[in-house]
């Protein structure tokens, strides 16, 4: 069964350092999402891509976060500089373009970030 791949699975960094997460969605899925999930809370949308274009990044802290999906396939989420409050699970999800009203997102296993 096809899966959304994410790396690294775990990342420990010191505050003020740069960190990057990578996501490879299911082949053919045009829509890609990055979520942040703080322990004990539900996932919070950071950015949504449709192919290589950003559809929604209203919740992305643009002073330190950036996201790209240059060729409309895999994607990178970067944080620079990392802050203590960025410690969370970063989840990537994808959905086919022809999803219509189907609310089925396919999530990766996530990248857990700890900022010291």
């Amino acid at each position, binding site marked *: 069964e096809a899966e959304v791949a994410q790396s690294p699975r775990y990342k420990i960094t010191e505050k003020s350092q740069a960190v990057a997460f990578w996501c490879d969605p299911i082949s053919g899925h045009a829509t890609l999402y990055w979520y942040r999930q703080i322990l004990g*809370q539900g996932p*919070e*949308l950071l950015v949504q891509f449709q192919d290589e274009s950003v559809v*929604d990044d209203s919740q992305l802290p643009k002073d330190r976060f950036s996201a790209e999906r240059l060729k409309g396939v895999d994607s990178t989420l970067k944080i620079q500089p990392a802050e203590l409050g960025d410690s969370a699970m970063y*989840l990537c999800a994808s959905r086919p373009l022809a999803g219509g*009203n189907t*609310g*089925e*997102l*396919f999530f990766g296993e996530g990248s857990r970030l700890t900022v010291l």
Partner: protein
Amino acid sequence: LAKTTQPISMDSYEGQEVNITCSHNNIATNDYITWYQQFPSQGPRFIIQGYKTKVTNEVASLFIPADRKSSTLSLPRVSLSDTAVYYCLVGEWDNYGQNFVFGPGTRLSVLP
């Protein structure tokens, strides 16, 4: 945005049927109701989606009354492996924006 309210936590025993109710009083005409399951240290997994009446799949059933202001996820004969967080989402899905939010979900604990 349609706001949802679910119990924060529930306990059950193996073999029992579990019903988790979600309230969404301001659901819009085009909104669908979607449920996800999340195990610790994993991404959420789609369980079921419905618009009205009843939907059933191999994992769960979703009951939606005529006014659609609430919905109930039913898990038949739960096992220990059903211990997870369950999220109720209400919104209109399209490819050009997301008009729903994940709440804190319902933490289900299945006891032996």
